[in-house]
């Protein structure tokens, strides 16, 4: 992608900022002019004030959710890449198992969560949900990447009698890296979703401490400002995860891959 001129770059930062400011202004005006009570719609200022006032509670909850998300993501990354490598070593294994990975993926996770909560300790069930949702994109992307090796490069490795391990480590995995990183970027956002879904399911079962649980709890108490504040934190967490993983992808690929090229060279 060709980087824009300075003017364009400034506009691309300014315009979303201006849109945000305008939105907040309209929101605030609506609350004031229509005299909406906070349990119907809190003003942006009240949400911000709640965020500060509830910081200890919400901060702890954010940490709990982020830990679950990170653990789910790590398990999904390791498990997805490892299973893709395993399936890549044997056609028979790939044919035998891949369909079930797809089935696992297309089954809505929120319907699996209550079952997991019955069979697993609560924290493990939440983690299992985060893992289940995030696992498949890593598996699918890694599988695609391992299969998209340049045919002539593969012939070259064959010509030089490279071992299976050499082909995997020196050819297939590096060639798959852009795909793997794309999979991880998707998985990062999804493991947050998985964690939230599981917390909500677990919360209604009467336990939990993450942000999503706090949202459910605040809902029962009609503490609408706190719901907004917790939601805001979840959004920010999602955005942060996305940017961290995009940055990681850029750093790893900047030397060689088109998607991370500094210009359209």
């Amino acid at each position, binding site marked *: 992608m060709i980087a824009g001129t300075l003017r364009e770059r400034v506009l691309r930062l300014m315009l979303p900022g201006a849109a945000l400011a305008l939105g907040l202004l309209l929101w605030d005006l609506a609350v004031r002019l229509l005299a909406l009570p906070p349990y119907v719609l809190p003003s942006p200022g009240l949400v911000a004030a709640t965020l500060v006032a509830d910081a200890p509670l919400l901060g702890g909850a954010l940490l709990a959710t982020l830990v679950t998300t990170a653990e789910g993501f790590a398990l999904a990354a390791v498990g997805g890449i490892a299973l893709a490598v395993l399936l890549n070593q044997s056609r028979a294994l790939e044919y035998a198992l891949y369909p079930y990975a797809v089935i696992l993926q297309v089954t809505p996770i929120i319907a699996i969560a209550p079952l997991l909560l019955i069979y697993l300790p609560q924290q493990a069930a939440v983690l299992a949900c985060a893992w289940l949702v995030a696992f498949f994109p890593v598996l699918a992307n890694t599988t695609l990447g391992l299969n998209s090796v*340049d045919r*002539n*490069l593969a*012939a*070259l*490795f*064959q*010509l*030089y*009698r*490279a071992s299976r391990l*050499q082909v995997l480590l*020196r*050819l297939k995995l*590096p*060639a798959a*890296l852009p795909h793997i990183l794309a999979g991880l970027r998707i998985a990062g956002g999804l493991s947050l979703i998985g964690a939230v879904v599981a917390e909500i399911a677990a919360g209604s079962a009467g336990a939990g401490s993450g942000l999503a649980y706090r949202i459910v709890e605040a809902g029962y108490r009609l503490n609408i400002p706190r719901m907004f504040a917790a939601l805001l934190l979840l959004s920010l967490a999602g955005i942060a995860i996305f940017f961290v993983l995009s940055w990681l992808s850029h750093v790893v690929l900047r*030397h*060689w*891959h*088109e998607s991370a*090229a500094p210009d359209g*060279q």
Partner: protein
Amino acid sequence: MDRAEPVIALQGVAKTFGELVALEGFDLAVQPGQFVTLLGPSGCGKSTALRIVAGLSEPSRGRVVRPQPQSGVPDVGFVFQEPTLMPWATVAANVALPLTLRRLPAAEIASRVEAMLARVGLSDFARAYPRQLSGGMQMRVSIARALVTAPALLLMDEPFAALDEITRFRLNDDLLALWQALGQTVVFVTHSVFESVYLSQRVLVMRARPGRIVAEIAIDAPLPRGELFRTSADYAALCRRVSQALHAASDAGAPA
């Protein structure tokens, strides 16, 4: 030159892919140190023949003699139509690949890669990544990688087809200089009459469906060849002869 044992000998080789007969009755013998060109229209099976010579593919029928493998690895370098470099690896790491796969000591790899990069004029680009290089430079890296093992046999599958003419002329000259210096046997596949005459000692003209060699033209112009040869009457006459042989072969291969 004809008295030595051939480095490569293919006798009565046939290759079929399902219904398609790519090669039939294909005979080829190349003496050590020769520069031989396989010239033919697209789809005549010249790349298939080259892959069989390399050992990347086995013939359906016929006999093949290849250079003795060195510690289990074919004593062959291969240059593809595209540079076929690993985009994630530096120029030095790309050139080092055949040595790395043989698990040679790092110091030996480094010195051989350095010497090879100097030969192809890319010493300053050892740490660059392929995408930072021009097409011609990428092809030099590819040639350096093929030659870094000092193979008895260098196989090239239309390596310069995608390059502009000026770059192609320079690489032709550089390839001839490398060949004179290193003395390996070269089998070069091309569909360019001019390139085949300029580079080789023997031009083998192929026809298609089924692919086989139908004419051989000896090019005994002395080396080094340069602009003088490229603009000489001899060169033009040889090109005409090769071109006529190619046309005759193409007509023979055309559907009735």
